[in-house]
């Protein structure tokens, strides 16, 4: 396998020998590290305050307006047998989600609400405050993301480190990496110096597709911005579609987060976290010999 451009080859100035076989290479620039953590914090607050906002009307529709009673996703509650039951409808399917979605306990009292209090900011139902949190961190998130993408283009970080190389995109290579990942075998040595193709595609999809989609669908829910940018409403097929897409893309980001955390832990938690804090990432100097696999 041919190797990526030597953007992060350990040079005398950045590489420090730690112990035999290990070397610390510079992996993440200070801009990437700072924006990564700001992004993580902003997304956490946006998600939890977003669920608070969702709870004000826990039904999702497609199109320009709300066709009440025909939501494609709906969370509700009904009383029966002296207890409150939570129900979640997705299309024609109905699920009993008592305790989590539709109906859950708030301060020990069964309450009809979309998401439970431990998933919303603030915990109690308080749409006005949820909006205050959401719009504050929306600005943090948008400005931070714009800085990350702009510097990523200018410094060629995106083109150099995140765009898959031609050899990485060969179907055989992609399948090999999927197979390696499934067996939790991660690149070591020289190969660990660059992102593998699954990482690259995941990061690019999040950075250039999912995160911008969150901003754009969020903007489409603003009646004022709809007047200023009518094409946004066209693009997403209506304000209620935009609200649905906002929810779906947020769910995909949560999914990415879960896989991201799992991969960070499985491929060397401390090494990964350190590289996102100090910028330095430890790799094996010599790749293990064939047949040396654990």
């Amino acid at each position, binding site marked *: 396998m041919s190797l990526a451009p030597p953007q992060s080859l350990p040079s005398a100035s950045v590489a420090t020998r730690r112990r035999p076989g290990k070397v610390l290479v510079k992996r993440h620039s200070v801009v990437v590290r700072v924006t990564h953590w700001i992004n993580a914090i902003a997304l956490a607050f946006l998600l939890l305050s977003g669920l608070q906002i969702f709870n004000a009307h826990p039904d999702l529709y497609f199109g320009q307006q*709300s066709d009440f009673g025909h939501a494609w996703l709906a969370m509700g509650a009904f009383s029966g047998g002296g207890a409150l039951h939570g129900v979640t409808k997705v299309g024609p399917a109905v699920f009993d989600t008592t305790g989590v979605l539709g109906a859950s306990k708030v301060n020990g009292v069964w309450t009809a609400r979309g998401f439970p209090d431990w998933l919303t900011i603030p915990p109690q139902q308080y*749409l006005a405050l949820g909006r205050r949190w959401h719009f504050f961190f929306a600005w943090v998130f948008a400005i931070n993301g714009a800085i990350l993408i702009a510097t990523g283009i200018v410094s060629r970080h995106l083109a150099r480190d995140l765009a898959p190389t031609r050899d990485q995109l060969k179907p055989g290579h992609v399948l090999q990496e999927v197979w390696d990942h499934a067996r939790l075998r991660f690149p070591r040595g020289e190969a660990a110096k660059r992102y593998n193709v699954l990482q690259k595609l995941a990061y690019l999809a999040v950075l250039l597709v999912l995160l911008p989609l969150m901003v754009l669908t969020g903007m489409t829910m603003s009646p004022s911005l709809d007047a200023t940018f009518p094409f946004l409403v066209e693009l997403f097929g209506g304000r209620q579609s935009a609200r649905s897409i906002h929810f779906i893309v947020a769910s995909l980001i949560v999914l990415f987060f879960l896989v991201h955390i799992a991969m960070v832990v499985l491929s060397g938690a401390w090494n990964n976290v350190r590289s996102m804090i100090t910028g330095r990432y430890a790799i094996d100097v010599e790749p293990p010999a064939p047949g040396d696999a654990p």
Partner: protein
Amino acid sequence: MSLDRRGWLAGLGASLSTLALSGCEKLATNPDVVRALSSAEGLNRRVQRLIGAGALAREYPRADITANFKANGTIDPPDADYQAMAAKGFADWKLVVDGLVERPLALSLEQLMQLPSRTQITRHDCVEGWSCIGEWTGARMSALMDAAGLKQQAKHLVLYCADTLGGAKYYETLDLVDVRHPQTILAYAMNGAPLTVPHGAPLRLRAERHLGYKQAKYVMRLQAVASFAHIAGGHGGYWEDRGYERYAGI
């Protein structure tokens, strides 16, 4: 593990999570924190007004009008004076225009209908998240303000409503830039018929480009003011006094 100990551990877990949640609650509702977060409202208002300037809200074809337009908030004012007016078909009803105006007015519904009017099919976006499309016909607010003559010191328009909601009278405020917007009307008709009680009879505001709580129903009086700090809770509206943004464009 004994059942006792298990119960004790479960209890400990429950109280710890309650503690964490009440800690979240305290932080999330702390006045200083909320004040800091609310700086985003000014940013939204300035940026959206700067880039939006005179932009018009999208208007929809007649086919998009919903048969199921949700009436929210007050749908039948409990106030005795309102009920008495409604019983008479609003025959004695008059809209009062006063405050910082050259010519205070008291207009009947017929007189309002003499003013230049506008009909618009627009999307109503509730702060809760839902949307409904309907057609509104009403007097242009800018024409009414021209008739009354706003004084130089006037900065906002206060809309006093007939309905009491949760123990307080509903009211709203508009900045002059929104008062002057061509799609800001005092609607007396919806979908070609006189406004019904659930939707704000006899007169409601339509200030397109704003969320639903800005669209005050049962409007009784317009007052031009230099400041609304002394009115009700001082935040410029019923829901604004309860934590919602006065800038309702988002």
